[in-house]
């Protein structure tokens, strides 16, 4: 379509039809004040500050909602316009309370700014402060609605961006305000405390609950969120070398745009935790034989580390030392860490606790697609043609990925949710496939996907051309599944056949975006389910499409990067297999060093080796295995047998208590580095505050260690490590050149021949039995990331009083005589026993659970949930430690 030509302030400008006058003006460097418009929100026109005058008609119009028209002659700054704007501001201020002077929004208040620009000092109107509720009970958000100017940004952010729908206007006129359902406090509403509305509010009506700081931060700097794999860009407000406020960064093209989640927005107060490690500590023994960790300097501590490790290596061989790296540490740190393990200490015993935190899925998908589509962009997910969410945990585990799904659905993408639980997503519209009538709990996902696949095949909803070109049916999967009766498969899953038909008709001939949970391979039958998903993706042609395919949410913020850097016992940087001699040789040549022959031990094998006494020392960086691995008692027993443990971390934790040397590292905001998010976005950042006490960036500690251990290369600056990564890791050639780069995937095309997996008839796994009649799933709630080592130190998360009740289906609660009776002295305490251990917690009824299912949220009570999990389920290929048979005892 032809551009429209119009005049703004005497300047001829042109803009595509449909552009608002505001946008056209801004594109041409003409600023118009606004209070209610935001580039990520639909135009609204509530505040009228953006008024402009059209000369020909003499009309005043709100520029943010008026599209450009041919021959318009616009004045954005005429005396008449200014006059009207002033009057609007005067009215707003007349309604404002006097507490404006001490408002936390301070100099960032947009109303004050607009008033100042227009020169409105006194209103000369009768002040009519509009006293409305003041809400400070929750630890996250303060709502002082007397300062609300009804711009509707919070409501629109809540509905359009994060798609929660916790708030909306109530009433009309003077008494109108953004409220929750039945005007309950936020914590009793559906609010997820993502804080997106807080960052958008132009005034002090919504602000962050800060108990330790008031006013405007001195500086604001951009960094990357240290929690989940979405890798949101944050703007950290800093005063006095403390992070006092967090907002989404204003940079363009970030993954999160104007949104965040509760962890990113509010849980970074863990940086100020009194439990931060401030000094290197070395274990000393006094005269009575008691040991304690005594503070020392880095030089002494690292000499001890280098000396002891060299000694152990000399006496017990390379295989006796293990290294546990971390998906919480940067690319540079993981790279250096694995290199130290391999080159200096001569072992491939380098792993992470990612085996219990989503790494398996990332690896499996990379393997299956031969590295061609291991990462997909969330912006593609938002533009998907159709979405199938399977057992999806994104809403809680990777909330920003969840927003993308919901926004896609709002834009009209059909959504099919396959989940025995009624998650938020299941209730979001679309078709929800769930076991209405029985079915085996552990097999549900596979049965449901098979039913859907068979139905799609029966209805001809298959991309033949794509299939013929790429799929290789060596196991005869297609004839096998085509021979099945789709309705019988649906019934086997416990789903009403009608619903599967409905789902299939919505998906037919569309390119589907599949979203499994991050922890799929930690669930029972996860591998078979992934196979079934891949087959479906292949026959519908989803894999080759930009906005379709399999989207892998990453639980931890550098899960992808840690693997890319070779933080794995069988892989060198750049996903080079140790078992492949030529790949190994190529890295050895670049390193000018020998690389140990044998593949190293994964986390399961390391713990077993410690138990057997063959592993003598562990160097743990940024992980707390005593909290994050199943069966903590067993892990503790194993660690206690070691001769020497080094823990490099930011917080005192259970693992540091066992350590012989503790090295205080720096958190994400305190160092330079890069993280790679679930989309393969490599995001570089610089320090925003300095580390507490003597703590140092982890890469700097590792560099010092390398030097102490006699390594010739001196990594004096992060750029030195980056140079090496750019050379060694082919997909990272752009690392560090810009704030944001993308992982280069192997080739742009998908592989020529994809094997279709055989038809799986799921095994019974840990189906419940008489002794343990329920099946529990240990999963995420948004308040804690994974094991919760950091989130549990967030004063706000702790104060929110979320207690992580064990969730029980209504029918089971009835049978057991457990009710949600908070009136009768709180929630009932139950004991949950599995074949591996027991925990005691309060129980609550979750209306969304089917009979026989129990949900145990992770991260609470020191992550005690791990006590009921089976450590041996971690043994590759992994039998799904997150699902476990349990029984309930009332206390």
């Amino acid at each position, binding site marked *: 379509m032809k551009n429209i030509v119009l005049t703004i302030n005497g300047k001829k400008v042109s803009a595509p039809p449909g552009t608002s006058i505001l946008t056209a003006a801004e594109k041409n460097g003409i600023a118009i004040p606004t209070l209610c418009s935001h580039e990520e929100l639909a135009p609204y026109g509530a505040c009228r500050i953006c008024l402009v005058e059209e000369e020909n008609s003499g009309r005043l119009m709100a520029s943010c909602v008026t599209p450009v028209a041919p021959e318009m002659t616009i004045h954005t700054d005429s005396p008449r316009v200014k006059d009207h704007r002033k009057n609007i501001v005067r009215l707003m201020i007349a309604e404002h309370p006097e507490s404006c002077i001490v408002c936390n929004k301070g100099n960032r208040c947009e109303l004050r700014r607009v008033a100042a620009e227009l020169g409105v000092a006194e209103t000369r109107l009768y002040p009519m402060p509009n006293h409305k509720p003041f809400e400070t009970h929750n630890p996250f958000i303060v709502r002082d609605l007397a300062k609300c100017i009804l711009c509707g940004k919070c409501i629109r952010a809540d*509905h359009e961006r994060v798609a*929660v*729908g*916790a*708030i*909306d*206007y*109530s*009433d*009309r006129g003077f008494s109108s305000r953004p*409220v*929750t*359902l*039945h005007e309950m406090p936020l914590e009793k*509403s*559906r609010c997820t405390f993502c804080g997106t509305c807080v960052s958008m509010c132009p005034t002090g009506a919504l602000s962050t609950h800060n108990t330790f700081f008031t006013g405007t931060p001195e500086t604001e700097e951009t960094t990357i969120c240290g929690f989940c794999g979405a890798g949101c860009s944050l703007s950290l407000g800093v005063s006095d070398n403390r992070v006092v406020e967090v907002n989404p960064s204003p940079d363009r093209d970030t993954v999160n745009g104007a949104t965040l989640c509760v962890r990113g927005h509010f849980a970074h107060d863990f940086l100020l935790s009194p439990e931060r490690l401030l000094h290197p500590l070395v274990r000393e023994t006094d005269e009575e034989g008691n040991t304690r960790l005594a503070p020392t300097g880095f030089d002494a501590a690292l000499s001890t580390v280098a000396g002891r490790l060299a000694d152990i290596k000399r006496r017990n061989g390379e295989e006796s030392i293990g290294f546990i790296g971390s998906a919480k540490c940067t690319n540079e740190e993981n790279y250096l860490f694995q290199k130290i393990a391999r080159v200096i200490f001569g072992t491939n015993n380098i792993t992470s606790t990612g085996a219990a935190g989503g790494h398996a899925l990332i690896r499996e998908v990379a393997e299956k697609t031969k590295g061609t589509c291991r990462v997909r962009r969330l912006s593609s997910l938002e533009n998907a043609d159709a979405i199938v969410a399977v057992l999806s945990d994104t809403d809680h585990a990777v909330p920003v990925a969840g927003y993308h799904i919901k926004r896609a659905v709002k834009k009209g993408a059909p959504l099919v949710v396959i989940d025995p639980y009624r998650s938020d997503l299941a*209730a979001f*519209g679309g078709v929800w496939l769930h076991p209405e009538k029985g079915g085996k709990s552990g097999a549900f996902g596979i049965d449901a996907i098979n039913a859907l696949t068979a139905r799609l095949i029966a209805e001809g909803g298959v991309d033949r051309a794509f299939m013929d070109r790429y799929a290789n049916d060596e196991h005869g999967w297609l004839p096998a599944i085509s021979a099945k009766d789709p309705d019988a498969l649906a019934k086997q899953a416990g789903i009403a056949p009608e619903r599967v038909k409905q789902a299939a008709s919505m998906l037919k001939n569309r390119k589907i975006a599949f979203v499994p949970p991050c922890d799929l391979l930690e669930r029972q039958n996860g591998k078979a389910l992934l196979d079934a998903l891949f087959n479906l993706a292949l026959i519908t042609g989803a894999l080759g499409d930009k906005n379709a395919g399999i989207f892998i949410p990453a639980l931890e913020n550098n899960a992808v990067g840690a693997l890319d850097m070779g933080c794995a016992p069988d892989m060198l940087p750049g996903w080079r297999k140790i078992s492949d001699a030529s790949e190994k040789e190529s890295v050895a040549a670049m390193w000018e060093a020998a690389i140990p022959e044998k593949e190293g031990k994964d986390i399961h094998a390391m713990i077993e080796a410690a138990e057997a006494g063959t592993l003598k020392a562990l160097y743990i960086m940024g992980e707390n295995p005593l909290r994050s691995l199943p069966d903590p008692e067993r892990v503790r027993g194993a660690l206690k047998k070691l001769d020497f443990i080094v823990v490099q971390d930011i917080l005192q934790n259970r693992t540091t208590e066992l350590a012989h040397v503790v090295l205080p590292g720096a958190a994400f905001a305190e160092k330079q580095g890069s993280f790679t998010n679930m989309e393969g976005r490599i995001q570089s950042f610089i320090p925003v505050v300095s580390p507490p006490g003597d703590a140092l960036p982890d890469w700097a500690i590792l560099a010092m260690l390398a030097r102490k251990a006699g390594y010739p290369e001196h990594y004096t600056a992060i750029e030195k490590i980056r140079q090496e990564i750019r050379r060694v890791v082919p997909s990272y050639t752009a690392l560090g050149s810009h704030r944001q780069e993308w992982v280069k995937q192997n080739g742009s095309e998908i592989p020529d021949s994809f094997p279709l997996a055989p038809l799986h008839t799921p095994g019974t796994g840990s189906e419940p039995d008489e002794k343990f009649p329920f099946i529990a799933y240990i999963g995420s709630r948004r308040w804690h990331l994974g094991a919760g080592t950091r989130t549990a130190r967030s004063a706000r998360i702790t104060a929110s009083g979320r207690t992580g009740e064990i969730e029980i289906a209504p029918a089971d609660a009835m049978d057991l005589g457990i009710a949600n009776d908070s009136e009768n002295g709180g929630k009932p305490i139950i004991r949950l026993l599995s074949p591996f251990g027991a925990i005691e917690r309060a129980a609550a009824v979750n209306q969304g659970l089917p009979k026989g299912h129990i949900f145990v949220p992770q991260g609470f009570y020191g992550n005690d949930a791990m006590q009921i999990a089976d450590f041996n389920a971690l043994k590759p290929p992994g039998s799904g430690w997150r699902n476990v048979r349990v029984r309930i005892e009332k206390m």
Partner: protein
Amino acid sequence: MLQQAEILESVLERYPSKPEYLIFMLQDIQADCGYIAPESMEIICEHANVPITQGYSVATFYQSFRLEPQGEHEIKVCLGTACHLKGGERLVENLERKLDIHRGETTEDMMFTLNTVNCLGACAMAPVAVVDDEYISSTTPAKLDKSLKAAQQQ
């Protein structure tokens, strides 16, 4: 409530699952049940595919929607300009004391709901009150008393 559940079912059947039918559905429930119960609100919003807060927003925007069960008899006292000047406010306060409720509320025995309105278009008769469908002109507490008694005896 059972009754509301049945009515709800027939309402849902009448309207497609689209946001634009939200108000129609709320109106039908309001007409048949006299108010919109929280459960009904939830189900209607789910059917209309809108967040439940949006249903609440609509229901509080229009004065004709009620979110709580209403008393058997409705008392409306006019607080428009004319009636206000003629002591409408005092009438309301009087009723509040007598019935032991605030404006907008319903007595515990579910007999009376007390509401205020802004001008009933009968300013010549100010202050005006309405009990059910009966208009009272030049209202006094005594006159109101009588009407309430009469209503109660019906």
